[in-house]
């Protein structure tokens, strides 16, 4: 990894681009509790970046900072070469940052198709009046976006459930629909908060395949939080390790695996 400015080539030969997002000295406090303490790292175009760490390490808080749900107490978020000012979450979404949630956050009353279509809301432009009359632009736009959504439905192999209300689906499929909704936004950065939590081995394998395929097919930059170490080591290009809100490791999986701080954090260390 000689050339960090121009990007690097991964172990499996994929070319990773320049810095897409940079987090500089992020600190996040809730009153007296320090959730994240002075963390800096970058996310490069086209890579799969993992954030790992024991429970309560501040991984989800970190993801929430990236997705704009939390505004960091200190530090700066740089996105595509510009400093991102404090924004509401919906404004961050419009910049091209999409995410999934640890405990699925789908719209239960709507069908799978409608749920995925909501992912494209930021890209749809027709006004209230044009939609009220459903003539010309609104209807054409709807069809054009439907076509894109159908491609994602094919890609994630959920054709048979497209008209089913999401509330009726089993857990594994819901996770897949949520991924579809995030993908529908054609995000610059895709944030996945424990995409494999609570899944059995087969579902995990499916999900891994989808994450790799998405990265391969669309070149989507992906940031994921995951507890399954096997999965993380196999999937990710670079890993950030957090413990008690601090960064204790950052680098390719094999490097992180041999880092003494990381081993201590996961296995515990004798205090004397």
């Amino acid at each position: 990894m000689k050339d960090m400015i121009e990007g690097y080539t991964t172990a499996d030969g994929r070319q990773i681009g320049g810095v897409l997002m940079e987090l500089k000295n992020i600190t996040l406090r809730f009153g007296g509790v320090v959730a994240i303490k002075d963390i800096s790292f970058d996310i490069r175009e086209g890579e799969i970046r993992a954030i790992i760490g024991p429970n309560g390490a501040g991984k989800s808080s970190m993801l929430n900072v990236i997705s704009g749900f939390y505004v960091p107490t200190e530090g700066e978020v740089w996105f595509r070469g510009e400093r991102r000012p404090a924004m509401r979450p919906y404004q961050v979404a419009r910049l091209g940052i999409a995410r999934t949630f640890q405990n699925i956050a789908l719209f239960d009353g709507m069908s799978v198709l409608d749920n995925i279509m909501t992912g494209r809301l930021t890209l749809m432009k027709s006004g209230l009046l044009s939609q009220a009359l459903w003539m010309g632009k609104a209807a054409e736009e709807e069809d054009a976006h439907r076509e894109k959504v159908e491609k994602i439905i094919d890609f994630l192999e959920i054709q048979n459930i497209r008209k089913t209300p999401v509330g009726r689906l089993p857990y594994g499929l819901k996770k897949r629909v949520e991924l579809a909704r995030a993908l529908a936004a054609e995000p610059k950065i895709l944030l996945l908060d424990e995409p494999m939590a609570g899944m059995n081995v087969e579902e995990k394998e499916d999900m891994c395949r989808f994450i790799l395929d998405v990265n391969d097919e669309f070149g989507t930059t992906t940031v994921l939080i995951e507890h399954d170490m096997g999965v993380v080591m196999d999937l990710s290009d670079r890993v950030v390790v957090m413990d008690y809100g601090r960064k204790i490791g950052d680098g390719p999986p094999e490097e992180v695996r041999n880092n003494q701080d990381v081993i201590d954090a996961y296995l515990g260390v004798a205090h004397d």
Partner: protein
Amino acid sequence: MFYREAGDFKTSYRADSQTFPIRLDRMGFWAAMLIAYAVVPFVIDDYWANAVFVPFLIYAIAAIGLNILVGFAGQVSLGTGGFMAVGAYAVYKLMTAFPEVPFFFHVILAGGVTACVGVLFGLPSLRIKGFYLAVATLAAQFFLVWLFNKVPWFYNYSASGQITAPDRTMLGIYITGAQTSAVAKYLFCLVILTLVALVARNLTRGTVGRKWMAIRDMDIAAEIIGVNPLTAKVTAFAVSSFFIGIAGALLFSVYLGAAEVGEAFGINKSFLVLFMVIIGGLGSIFGSFAGAAFLVLLPVFLKNVLVGAFGWPTDVAAHLELMIVGALIILFLIVEPHGLAQLWRIAKEKLRLWPFPH
């Protein structure tokens, strides 16, 4: 066996996302339209128009309006009566101030005025949710009724404090006032209801509707995917109040002819329309029709049965009628909490398989 979608293939996304994807539904829809426009006007008389059809049409408009707010956008409102009063007083002021403008535009403009008022009272919804929002809209209800009672400008300083609809024509036919025929009232309300239902359907199937439903189902997730909660909630309040204002304007000018605000647009009206929406089915345009039909027709039907068939005294029948309607509402909600629209959906699913069980 007869009602099914097998063999009804869709070859474009447009065809797949149409309002009635199943052919038999489309035929049913056009049959209903044919009956409403080409059969009913020839058989309608004053009794049927005043007791059944006109109130049904007007309350269906109000129910569609409230359903957009409560059923689609998930914002509970108890201010429907107040917003209907805004529509009624707006149309009254417009009719008396600009007699030369066609009445149709007065009704639409009254809807616009109500939409503005609705947005104003909808702004707190950004901060308060659920029961608390219901209480806030309740305040709107009482405030608006008080306002129209206390400020004589709204009722043109009339001695009685009432508003009375002046005679207005469209294309030379009386729409309001004493000379209006049953057919004219019926057709005018029917045309407006058709337009309102089409617009409501178009809005709820597109981007705007998805934003509303996203806010309803999980507002935090909606914001994360790029929905601005302020604009989504405010448009819901605007569109909903627009329709409710139109309903209020029609109720006053076409149906009642004269109105006193506390009596015609009190809290009872808010609850009546809310019951229609809940019994009909939240988040369903068809449900709004069903709920309005249920609550308008049931009392008429009961009265006819009790007084006409059983020969009971009118006052006993009137009290019994209230009790039976109340009991039926409770029964309905126990049997099917998602309303008549859900019953209809279940019936259709069963019909699709009939006569086979699976």
